C-alpha cells in the first residue's frame, strides 16, 4: 500500500486505524501530568552540585556549611553511596557522585535535600569544594595517541570496531583495496546534537516501610533503571520499585540515568519523599548527547558508477563516560556504508573517552553520523562520474539477498531503489511564493526580498537497525487480562513499556482490540511489578512490546477457546474474536462475555525477536542485527547565498514501515524525525570549547520552529517483513537519518560549496572566511 495523505483520527481503534491517542487531549490542553508535576505531602526538594571544570582533581568536599542552613535535611557525597559507586548502561564507569576526579563539566559532585528549591539552591552554594583543575582531554583523535593524558586509567579507547569484507590488510595494517576507475574521498564532521526534549529530567522518590524505595520517574526503560539504581543503593531489585511518570520527550536522552539514584539516596537518607527537577540549563548537563564525529571516507567505483569498495574511518567522541558508546560505534560501522551493495569494505570505528560531555543514545544511534558521510560521498561520486545523484544510488541499491559489510544477508523487503525512485518522481516543489517574508530564507527577519536566493534540491537515503543487536537478550513482557467489568467486556494490558510521546499507548490498545475483538481496553500504568519490556529505543517498542501483547492475547484466546471446547482449543487458528463474538469462519459460535463470565482470563507473555550474533572482533563479521529499516528524502531549499541563510521549502520522504499499525502515528514519527534531522543539518549543536559548554539554553541551542519546518510529502510503503509481528518495521529512527544529508546536498546544489560539517553555519554557506570576504563558490 502506498499513501500520500494526512490522517485524521479515524476508525474503530483497530490495527490500521488512527484512533485518538488516550493521552492526546490532556496533552494539547496542558492537563497531562508530566514527571515535573509530581507532588506529594511532606516532600523535600533535591538538588545537585555539579563540577564547573571539565577535568579536575577533587581535593576536598565539605558539606557541613550546607547542613547548617535551616531547612536543609541532607547533603550527600560519594561516601554516602551505599552500593556500587559507579553505574552505566553497558559499563558501570560513571560515578553516582564524583570521587577522586571530575571528568566533565556538570558532573554531579554532591546532593542536597531541602524544604524548597530556593533553600536547596542556597545549600548547594554553601558546599565547599576544592578542585585542582587539570588540562582536559578534548580532541577525540588526539586522545587515541599514546602520549595522550588518560581520562580513565584503562585508556581512552571505549571500543574499536573493525570490519573487513573481502579485504585483507597489509602486514603494516593498510587494507588492500582493488583498483578502481574513480576514487572520491572526503572528511566529514558532525557536531554534538542534543535531544532537546521539553520535559526536563525529573522524578519523585518515596521511601517505603520495607526499607526500599518507590521511584516515580520519566525514563525510557524502567527495568534498566531499576537494575542500576538497586545496585548503587545496595538493595535487592525487588525493593526498588519504579513507576513511569509522564515523559516529556526522550529521543535517547533518558536511556541513561540522571536523577534516579540521587533522589532515592536522598529519600532513604531523610526518610521523606524527595522530588528532583532539573532546570533547562541543568538538563543540558543532565543527559548524554549525540556523538560528535570525524569521518574519513574513500569510495572506489567503476566508470559505470558501480561501487567497488569503501574504506571508512569513524571516530566518535564519547565524552567522559562510556554510556552506550560501544553500541553506537557498532551501528556507525556496521551501517557505515549505507544501503548499498559493495563487494569490498574496510571500516574502522573508534569510540573514545574525552573530557567532553558524555555522549550516548540519540535517535538514529550512530547511523546518523555515518549517513551524513556516506551520502555526501555518493553525491561526490555522482559528480565525479557525471551521473544523477539518484541514479548512482539506484545502481548500487541494496536488495533482498545482498550481504552487508558484516556478511549478514538482507532478508525481507529492501526497497532501497524504490524509495529513491519515489522521492525523485514526486512533483517538484512549488516556486517560492512572493509577498510573504515567512517563505524566504531569514523569515520575518526581512533579510531578503529575493536577492541572492538560489534554489537547490538534494537527496539522501539511510539505513537503520531495529531492536537491540549483537547477541543481546532482547525481550519484552506483557500481561493481558480479559474480564467483565460492570457487565462489559474489558481487556486490560500491563507492561513496563514506556510511552515517550511516540504513541505506544495507542498502539497497545489497537493490538488488543484487534486480537481479542473487544472495544474497551484499559492500560495499566507502566511499572516494574510486571516483567521487563526493554527500552523505548532502537525503534523497537511496537515490534517488541507489540509482539508481547500479541502473544499474550493469543494465550488469552487459547484459554477462552478451551472453555468453549477441547476441539476448539486444539485448533485456535480456526477461530476469530470479533466484536465480542467468537467466530468460526463467518459463523458465530459463542459470545465472548458468556465464555468469560465471572472468571477472568489472564496471560503473561514474553516476546523475543530472532537471536542475533556478536561481531567477530577481527573481521566484524556476524548476523548482528534483527531487522533493517530504510527511508529516503528529497529536500528542496531556498538559500540566501550571500547571507548563508536557508529556508527548507519542502521535504519528500518515502519509508517502508512494513505495516502501519497506526498510520497517523507513523506520519507523526516521519515528520518529527525528519525535522530532527533538519535541526542537525542547519541549527542544532551543543558548542563545546575546551570541555566547556557554551550554549546550554534554548536561547542559543536552536531547534527548528514551525517556521523552519517545511510541508512534507510522505510516501509510506507497507511491504511487510515476514519475521516481524504484523510484518511491521520500526519507524521512529529512519526518517531522522537521511534528512540531514538530503538538506545539505540541496544547500550544496544551491551554493556550489563543499560543506563537509553539520550543522551548517551561515558563514560556511556564505563562504565567509576569517578575513571576512566570501570565497568563490566551487561550482
Amino acid at each position, binding site marked *: 500500500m502506498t499513501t500520500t495523505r494526512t490522517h485524521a483520527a479515524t476508525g474503530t481503534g483497530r490495527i490500521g486505524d488512527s484512533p485518538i491517542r488516550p493521552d492526546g487531549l490532556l496533552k494539547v490542553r496542558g492537563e497531562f501530568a508530566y514527571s515535573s508535576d509530581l507532588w506529594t505531602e511532606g516532600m523535600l526538594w533535591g538538588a545537585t552540585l555539579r563540577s564547573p571544570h571539565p577535568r579536575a582533581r577533587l581535593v576536598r568536599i565539605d558539606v557541613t556549611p550546607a547542613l547548617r542552613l535551616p531547612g536543609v535535611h541532607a547533603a550527600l557525597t560519594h561516601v554516602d553511596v551505599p552500593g556500587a559507586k559507579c553505574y552505566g548502561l553497558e559499563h558501570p564507569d560513571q560515578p553516582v557522585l564524583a570521587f577522586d576526579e571530575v571528568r566533565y563539566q556538570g558532573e554531579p559532585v554532591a546532593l542536597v535535600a531541602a524544604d524548597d528549591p530556593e533553600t536547596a539552591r542556597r545549600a548547594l552554594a554553601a558546599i565547599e569544594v576544592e578542585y585542582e583543575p587539570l588540562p582536559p582531554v578534548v580532541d577525540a583523535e588526539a586522545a587515541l595517541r599514546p602520549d595522550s593524558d588518560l581520562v580513565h586509567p584503562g585508556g581512552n579507547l571505549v571500543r574499536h570496531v573493525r570490519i573487513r569484507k573481502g579485504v585483507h590488510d597489509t602486514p603494516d595494517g593498510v587494507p588492500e583495496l582493488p583498483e578502481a576507475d574513480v576514487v572520491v574521498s572526503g572528511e566529514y564532521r558532525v557536531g554534538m546534537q542534543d535531544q532537546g526534549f521539553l520535559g526536563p529530567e525529573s522524578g519523585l522518590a518515596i521511601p517505603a516501610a520495607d526499607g526500599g524505595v518507590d521511584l516515580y520517574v520519566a525514563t525510557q526503560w524502567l527495568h534498566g533503571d531499576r537494575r542500576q539504581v538497586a545496585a548503587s543503593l545496595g538493595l535487592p531489585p525487588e525493593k526498588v520499585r519504579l513507576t513511569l511518570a509522564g515523559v516529556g520527550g526522550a529521543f535517547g536522552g533518558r536511556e541513561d540515568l540522571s536523577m534516579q539514584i540521587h533522589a532515592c539516596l536522598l529519600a532513604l537518607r531523610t526518610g521523606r519523599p524527595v522530588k528532583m527537577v532539573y*532546570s*533547562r540549563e541543568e538538563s543540558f548537563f543532565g543527559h548524554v548527547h549525540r556523538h560528535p564525529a570525524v569521518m574519513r571516507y574513500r569510495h572506489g567505483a567503476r566508470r559505470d558508477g558501480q561501487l567497488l569498495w569503501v574504506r571508512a574511518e569513524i571516530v566518535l567522541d564519547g565524552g567522559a563516560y562510556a554510556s552506550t558508546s560501544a553500541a553506537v560505534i557498532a551501528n556507525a560501522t556496521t551501517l557505515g556504508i549505507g544501503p548499498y551493495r559493495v563487494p569490498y569494505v574496510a571500516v574502522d570505528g573508534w569510540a573514545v573517552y574525552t573530557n567532553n560531555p558524555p555522549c550516548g543514545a540519540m535517535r538514529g544511534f550512530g547511523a546518523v553520523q555515518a549517513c551524513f558521510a556516506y551520502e555526501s560521498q555518493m553525491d561526490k561520486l555522482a559528480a565525479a562520474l557525471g551521473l544523477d545523484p539518484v541514479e548512482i544510488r539506484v545502481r548500487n541499491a541494496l536488495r533482498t539477498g545482498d550481504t552487508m559489510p558484516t556478511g549478514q544477508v538482507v532478508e525481507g523487503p529492501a526497497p532501497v531503489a524504490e524509495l529513491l525512485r519515489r522521492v525523485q518522481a514526486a512533483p517538484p516543489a512549488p516556486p517560492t511564493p512572493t509577498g510573504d517574508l515567512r517563505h524566504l530564507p531569514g523569515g520575518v527577519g526581512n533579510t531578503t526580498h529575493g536577492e541572492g536566493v538560489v534554489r537547490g534540491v538534494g537527496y539522501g537515503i539511510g539505513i537503520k537497525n531495529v531492536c537491540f543487536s549483537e547477541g543481546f537478550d532482547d525481550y519484552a513482557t506483557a500481561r493481558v487480562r480479559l474480564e467483565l467489568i460492570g457487565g462489559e467486556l474489558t481487556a486490560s494490558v500491563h507492561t513496563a513499556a514506556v510511552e515517550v510521546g511516540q504513541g505506544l499507548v495507542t498502539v497497545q490498545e489497537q493490538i488488543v482490540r484487534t486480537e481479542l475483538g473487544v472495544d474497551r481496553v484499559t492500560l495499566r500504568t507502566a511499572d516494574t511489578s510486571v516483567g521487563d519490556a526493554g527500552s523505548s529505543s532502537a525503534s523497537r517498542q511496537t515490534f517488541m512490546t507489540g509482539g508481547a501483547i500479541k502473544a499474550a492475547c493469543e494465550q488469552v484466546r487459547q484459554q477462552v477457546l478451551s472453555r468453549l471446547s477441547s476441539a476448539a482449543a486444539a485448533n485456535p487458528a480456526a477461530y476469530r474474536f470479533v466484536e465480542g463474538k467468537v467466530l468460526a469462519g463467518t459463523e458465530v459460535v459463542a459470545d465472548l462475555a458468556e465464555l468469560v463470565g465471572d472468571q477472568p482470563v489472564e496471560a503473561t507473555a514474553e516476546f523475543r525477536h530472532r537471536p542475533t550474533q556478536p561481531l567477530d572482533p577481527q573481521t566484524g563479521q556476524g548476523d548482528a542485527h534483527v531487522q533493517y529499516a530504510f527511508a529516503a528524502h528529497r529536500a528542496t531549499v531556498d538559500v540566501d547565498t550571500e547571507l548563508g541563510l536557508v529556508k527548507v521549502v519542502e521535504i519528500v520522504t518515502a519509508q517502508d514501515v512494513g505495516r502501519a499499525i497506526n498510520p497517523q502515528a507513523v506520519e507523526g514519527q516521519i515528520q518529527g524525525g525528519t525535522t530532527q534531522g533538519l535541526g542537525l543539518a542547519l541549527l542544532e549543536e551543543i558548542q563545546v570549547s575546551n570541555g566547556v559548554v557554551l550554549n546550554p539554553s534554548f536561547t542559543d541551542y536552536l531547534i527548528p520552529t514551525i517556521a523552519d519546518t517545511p510541508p512534507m510529502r510522505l510516501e509510506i510503503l507497507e511491504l511487510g517483513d515476514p519475521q516481524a509481528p504484523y510484518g511491521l518495521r520500526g519507524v521512529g529512527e529512519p526518517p531522522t537519518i537521511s534528512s540531514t544529508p538530503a538538506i545539505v546536498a540541496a544547500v550544496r546544489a544551491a551554493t556550489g560549496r563543499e560543506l563537509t560539517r553539520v550543522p551548517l553555519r551561515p558563514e560556511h554557506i556564505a563562504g565567509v572566511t576569517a578575513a*571576512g570576504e566570501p570565497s568563490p563558490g566551487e561550482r
Partner: protein
Amino acid sequence: MEFLAPTTWQDALAAKAEYPDAVPVAGGTDVMVGINSGRLRPSALLDLGRVTDLTDWGLDGGYLRLGAAVPYRRIIEELKDKAPGLGMAARTVGSPQIRNRGTIGGNLGTGSPAGDCHPPLLVCDAVIELASVRGVRRIPVTEFFLGPKRTAVAPDELIAAVLVPPADGPQQFAKVGTRNAMVIAVCSFALALTPERGWVRAAIGSAGPVPTRAYTAEQFLTEALQQDGFASRSGRGDVALPESVVRRFGELVAAAASPIDDVRGTAAYRRHALSVLAQRTLRWAWESYRGRGDRCT
C-alpha cells in the same frame, strides 16, 4: 523577596525611590527568564502591570509617544505606519506569546546589544523619557546605552516613555538569525531615509558592546546624495542609486561595527552580513522613496 504592585505611576516612582534595588517587571519576558535560571535574585520586584498609563501611546508635541509598557503586538498592529522601522523590528521579536507580553520599555531596560528595538530607535532619533520622584528627564537614545546591559537609567528611575518623531521617509529594519523565527539577532541593521532633508540614519545591532549609529556611513551617503543632486531633483521617480555608492555604504556600515566571535556567529560573518543588509535595505528604501517600493511583509 518583596513584591511591589503600585497601581499609579506616582506610586511606582515612590516605590522605586524607596527600593532602588527593586527590579521593575513589565512583560517579564526577560525578568522571569533571569529568575528561573537563577541568575537573577532581586530583593524586590516592582510590577508595572497595574500602571495603565504605561501601556498607552498617543501624540505628544511633534512626537509619537509610546508608554514604556506598550507591547510588541500593539506596535505591529497599531504603529507600523507611524513608526515603520520599529514595526518591522517588533515583527521579528520572539514568538506570538513574547510579542503579546514583551514591551519596548523592557527591551530598553534590559539594554542588550541584541535588543531589536534599539537600531530603529537610533535611526529615528528617538528620545527616552526617564522619571523619578526627583523629576522627569529626556535623553536622546544615543545616550541611553552605556555598555552591554548597562543603561542610563538611574537606580531610582523608571523608563516612562519612548518619544519617536513620526517617519518622514522610508525606514527599514533587517535582522539576521540562524533560525527563521524566534531568534536572537546575530546582527541587525536599521536605516531611515529622508533625502529631502539631506540626511540618512543607519544603526547596527548585535555587533558590538552597544547598539550604535554608523556615522561615517551616514555621512558618506548623505554627501553622495547631495553631491549628485538626487535629493533636490524633482520628479524623483527615475533616478537609480549607483552601485558604487550602495557598495561603499555597505562597506562603511560593516566598518562601523565592532563584532566579536561568539556562539551566534563569527565577527567576520557579522561584518559581512551587515554589509549585505546595509546594501539591500538601502536599495529597498530608495525604491520605496522613488515610489516603487515592493511591500514584502
